[in-house]
């Protein structure tokens, strides 16, 4: 705190012109976003469909950050996100559901007594529930991490995927706790746009700070070269575990938010395919880029919705394309393949957004465009 204060005082005097400009721009952006969110919450800017998509974007951004931390920043290929989300989503739902609704929803088998009369109401309730969801998921990640983090690469990916499926199958079978395959409905929609964007903003700031600490640097070091990292005295297991647990916490909170946004969950929602969806966001944005995860989440979630016109039949000039159900998903997956193949490092690589970078980009844009149309130098082919 002290340190922050002194730095803060320095803003007025000791900044360069660029830094002052950047600060100003950041503040304007934050204020603009807040104003936008305010009016959106009031229903003044966009319809409830768009709000729904925005909410989902923010939740996916949180999940992408969680996956990016372990995959992109620490280089440990984990596919367990769906399972962690399930833990978070069920914890949150069971905590914030009203008692009377629980009795109705658990119609096949009554809910276990120790959950029967739990009801955490309102915003404070959701806050507590998300916190507990995150913590329980973090504990689960800790327990799972002990055995699996000894594995590497492909093997780690399969083992985490396996755990994720085990969690889902267990949730399917524990009728009196999770209501089995019937799922849970009427989860209070407490999580509005302030919640989703607030949690997203919190985790963005958290990640930015984390990456500046020695832990963050150790994560990246492990990603770049495990052997070198170890020889420099970085405890591999400790740091991998830390990253895995934090990632689990975020996935748990993200899952909880998703449950509250959706209002209903079933175990089938948390199939391992869900982890693929998030992985694609991370890859599109760029492994190891916080900005990338956010942009990727917004792009993919909106693109999926935007591409819906493909399903409905359309005209390309004189050619009529009839209604083909599912064309949207084909085009979507084809676009994803193109990104995977030709923008392997994603939109942002492992870089972050900065105002300086943006101005540089704008300045260089004419040159870059011109370069496209110039004849290619012979004998390229360098990768």
């Amino acid at each position, binding site marked *: 705190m002290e340190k922050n204060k002194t730095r803060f005082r320095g803003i007025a005097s000791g900044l360069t012109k660029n830094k002052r400009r950047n600060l100003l721009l950041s503040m304007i952006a934050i204020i603009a976003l807040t104003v936008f969110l305010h009016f959106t919450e009031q229903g003044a800017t966009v319809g409830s469909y768009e709000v729904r998509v925005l909410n989902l974007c923010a939740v996916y951004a949180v999940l992408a950050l969680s996956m990016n931390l372990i*995959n992109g920043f620490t280089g440990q*290929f984990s596919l367990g996100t769906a399972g962690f989300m399930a833990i978070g989503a069920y914890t949150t739902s069971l905590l914030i559901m009203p008692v009377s609704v629980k009795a109705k929803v658990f119609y096949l088998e009554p809910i276990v007594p120790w959950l029967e009369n739990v009801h955490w109401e309102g915003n404070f309730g959701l806050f507590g529930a998300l916190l507990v969801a995150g913590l329980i998921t973090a504990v689960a990640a800790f327990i799972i991490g002990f*055995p*699996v983090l*000894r*594995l590497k*690469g*492909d*093997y780690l*990916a*399969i*083992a985490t995927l*396996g*755990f994720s*499926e*085990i969690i889902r*199958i*267990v949730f*399917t*079978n524990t009728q009196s706790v999770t209501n089995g395959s019937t799922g849970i409905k009427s989860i209070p929609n407490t999580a509005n746009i302030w919640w989703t964007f607030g949690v997203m903003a919190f985790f963005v700031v958290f990640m930015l700070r984390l990456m500046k600490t020695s832990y963050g640097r150790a994560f990246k070091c492990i990603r770049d070269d*495990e*052997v070198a990292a170890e020889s420099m005295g970085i405890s591999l297991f400790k740091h991998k575990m830390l990253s895995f647990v934090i990632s689990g916490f975020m996935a748990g909170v993200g899952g909880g938010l998703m449950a509250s946004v959706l209002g209903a969950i079933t175990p089938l929602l948390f199939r391992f395919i869900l982890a*693929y969806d998030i*992985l*694609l966001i991370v*890859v599109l944005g760029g*492994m190891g880029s916080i900005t990338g995860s956010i942009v990727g989440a917004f792009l993919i979630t909106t693109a999926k919705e935007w591409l819906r016109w493909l399903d409905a039949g359309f005209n390309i000039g004189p050619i009529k394309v009839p209604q*083909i*159900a*599912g*064309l949207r*998903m*084909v085009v*979507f*997956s*084809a676009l*994803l*393949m193109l990104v*995977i*193949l*030709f923008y*392997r490092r994603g939109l942002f690589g492992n870089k972050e957004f900065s105002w300086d970078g943006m101005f540089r980009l704008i300045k260089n844009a004419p040159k870059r465009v011109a370069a496209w149309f110039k004849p290619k130098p012979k004998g390229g082919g360098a*990768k």
Partner: protein
Amino acid sequence: MALFWQNVANGLTVGSLYALVAIGYTMVYGILRLINFAHGDIFMMAMYFAFFAISIFYIPWYIAIILVLVATMLLGMLIEKTAYAPIRNAPRISLLISSIGVSYLLENLATVLFTGVPRQFPSIGSLQNSLVIGGVTIQQLAIYTPVVMLILVALLLTLINKTKTGMAMRAVSKDFETAKLMGVNINRTISSTFAIGSMLAAVGAIMWGQKYPQIQPYIGVMPGLKCFIAAVIGGIGNIKGAVVGGLLLGMLEIMIVYAQPGLSGYKDAFAFVALILVLLIRPTGLFGEKVTDKV
């Protein structure tokens, strides 16, 4: 006692089907170090090819099988050329993600092309008939599957160990760059690896379809996952390992339900538990070779 042996017979039937599909997985992994997540979907496409050849175009099954094998082989090569070859030098995780992308694309494509309504897999010859031996009922299929599997394993081992292409494959699996320097045509070798891997998926699909005659766009997901687990248990990259892994997994699944019917809802979870246990105790599987990291 008859009940026990019936379960053993059931386990062997399922296990040999797992083993058959697992060989394809392991073959691709062993040479390219790539977990081909799209293998299950190539398997699905092969089932559709067979369906169209036999049920729609009425091609006799012995010709149809050859056509299906060729078509699947071409599909595998096409996938390799478009989705894997351009990023061959990228980190392995990129390849893995690309294979997830291919799987996604194939499933969605199949939904549009063939609709989601399940189809019936055409039955071939008299494989469906059952025999009763000492109170244990065995389908003829259960006898043919291991035979087909063993023939394939023998062919595959000969190919890899005795032929020039096989030698090239082994060279590629050891070291890309060196193999290239030694004059191995990398592109052709990898292409043929994929061709063979996909063909194995097609053989697996045909046998699988005899036992479980149902085709829909997501039919490859579960077999893909299970056979992958089988391959890992046996030691991915090792052909004999895949056979043993497949048989073990099949037996395990059946025997757990036999011993504890109350746990049958958790059947799929046991496959994953077995996978994780094997990975923890012997990370490279039962028959896998130890790989050390190069600095």
